[in-house]
């Protein structure tokens, strides 16, 4: 079992090095501010993809309401920082809790539904959240909330992303995570093995929603103004594409998926007319050649050369 600790340290060391490299790239202005902004967005999208993966990929509950939870986190966050001048950390945590609580409330009734019915119900809930926000004049309604302090920096995004990935990785590799995996594989058998399926489905939903809320807070504080138009179900499709492209049930997959999708739309910015057409074709081709996603169920830590670095003791989902 001591491998588990060792691997965490290796991962931690690798992340710190990565952070240092990227931070240098930013401070030395090697990366233009456009790519700096997109680096932040990639980090935020990784949090959203990993948290959506916890619900769809690991627990097998097909949720399409992620943009709604992100919106709750974003608006709670900006109201606290802009109107009540609360510190950034408090706003993020409050946003996460608010979104998590909503995930809990929403989870209980809808999780009786299965597959496509759950998908459309959660999509509907996401839209209801957006429409309600659009009608609250206190937060600027459809015209958007103005005057958001620019708190999000690369350090905030990177370390919250790191925390999210560690939280989800460790959760999935524990007894509770295995319960979620069991639910995905065969819910009837899971229940017969003593797993309280409702409790764990709602738990996955709540944790996923909470992280989406925190990501929403980070997202909102990158921009001076946010409007409900940025939290439509098309946005949820974006995160779903990242998760599926990376591989349902693989955290490395979600990271890769978020990186690839965000990078493609940023890189295509210089051809505005063809951007969406190229993106559409890329989607179709990628699903044609890799329907199971880049990583399928695999994690980077137990493939090829990495296998030697991370001793064999790992469970495949480490």
């Amino acid at each position: 079992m001591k491998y588990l600790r060792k691997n965490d340290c290796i991962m931690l060391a690798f992340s710190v090095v990565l952070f240092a490299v990227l931070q240098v790239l930013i401070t030395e202005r090697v990366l233009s501010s456009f790519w700096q902004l997109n680096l932040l967005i990639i980090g935020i999208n990784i949090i959203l993809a990993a948290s959506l993966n916890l619900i769809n990929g690991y627990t097998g509950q097909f949720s399409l309401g992620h943009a709604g939870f992100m919106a709750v986190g974003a608006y709670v966050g900006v109201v606290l920082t802009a109107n009540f001048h609360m510190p950034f950390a408090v706003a993020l945590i409050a946003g996460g809790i608010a979104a998590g609580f909503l995930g809990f409330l929403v989870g209980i009734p809808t999780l009786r539904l299965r597959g496509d019915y759950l998908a459309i119900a959660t999509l509907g809930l996401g839209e209801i959240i957006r429409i309600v926000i659009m009608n609250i004049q206190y937060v600027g309604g459809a015209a958007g909330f103005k005057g958001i302090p620019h708190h999000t920096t690369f350090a905030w995004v990177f370390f919250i992303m790191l925390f999210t990935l560690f939280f989800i990785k460790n959760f999935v590799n524990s007894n509770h995570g295995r319960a979620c995996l069991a639910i995905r594989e065969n819910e009837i058998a899971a229940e017969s093995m003593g797993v309280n399926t409702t409790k764990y489905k709602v738990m996955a939903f709540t944790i996923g929603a909470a992280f989406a809320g925190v990501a929403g807070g980070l997202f909102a504080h990158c921009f001076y103004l946010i409007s409900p138009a940025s939290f439509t179900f098309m946005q949820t499709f974006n995160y779903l594409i990242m998760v599926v492209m990376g591989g349902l049930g693989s955290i490395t997959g979600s990271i890769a998926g978020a990186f690839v999708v965000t990078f493609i739309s940023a890189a295509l910015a210089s051809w505005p007319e063809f951007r969406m057409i190229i993106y559409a074709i890329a989607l179709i081709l990628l699903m044609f050649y890799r329907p199971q996603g880049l990583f399928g169920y695999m994690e980077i830590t137990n493939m090829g050369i990495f296998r030697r670095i991370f001793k064999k003791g790992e469970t495949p989902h480490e």
Partner: protein
Amino acid sequence: MNFGKKGLKLASVLMGTMLMGGVLAGCGSQADSNEIKVGANFEMTGNVANYGAATLDGLKLAIDEINDAGGVDGKKITLVTADNKSEASEAVNAATKLISDDKVSVLVGPAVTANVIAESQVATDNKVPIIAPDATSPDVTVENGKVKPFVFRSCFIDPQQGTVMAKFASENLKAKTAVIYVDNSTDYSKSLGKVFKEKFEAAGGKVLMEEAFLAKDQDFKATLTKLKTANADVIFVPAYYEEVGKIVKQARELGITAPILGTDGWDDSKVTDIAGAEALNNTYFSTHYSDKDESVKPFVEAFQKKYGHMPNVFAALGYDAGKMLADAIKRAGSADPEKIQKALEETKDLKVGTGTITMDKNHNPIKQAVILQNKDGDRVMVAKIMPEE
């Protein structure tokens, strides 16, 4: 687990090329000497793509005309376009790209108020001036009393338009009661509704009912039936032509005969196509110009020649922004953003496509407004009003 290996190879190749691409693109192309780069940040996809595209057409016409006439002091203006997907966060993304990667000297657009406000922070931080061609809401250029130094506008603002229409309703049409029907998804429509109500009630009128709809709505019969019960003297619908056409058509079908008033969002030949000439009778709207006006003829003909159809108000304002931009660059004598900013502030009696522009201290242009009446498919100018300030 073979596919794992293949997946890893594919993913690392993908990520590798991208990282390289990113850093390379990061450096961006340096601005070579004999061209002035202008950024066009418009809604080219997403639900207000039609307004963004129309404004961009007008801007392109102005830029082409300037370049054909030898550019500014011999330097050509190159337009770099970026798509903000009709979303505030993407407007910031596009603006950052134009400023940091493409090194533009001036930003034109976006069309919608929310996107301009979102972008103004980035432009002010990087000291690059913005010209907002169509955003008429006052808090684009002024925020809690303070003028935003780098944000300019080439169209008049809502308070002016709202006042003009309120005065027109109470004085010319002798209206005592009114109902207001605004588009809840745009600042433009909501602030116009507020100004109209304020000025109309100040002039002794009474607003009986206020209703709202959403952009992209198709069916207004339900709310119109409710408005009909108030049978007010006038109905004020400050919105864009796509929804206005359907509202006027469906209102007339439900037997609402009261005059319907509007603002510059009505100014597009499509309103007549959607609503039908007959339904549009007894409707009035304020706008920037009348295409019957002699001084506007050259612009209308040039646009017709280049694009094969008549310009709408967005195209006209895009064109004005282009002209204003060129004039400022000439007076600044260089592509340096801060010099252009100073020149824009000093714009005085500049002849543009739809009239003359003088920049006031709040960076809003002093421009005349006209009121047009839809009469049997034609648009007759009923009044031309110079702003008081």
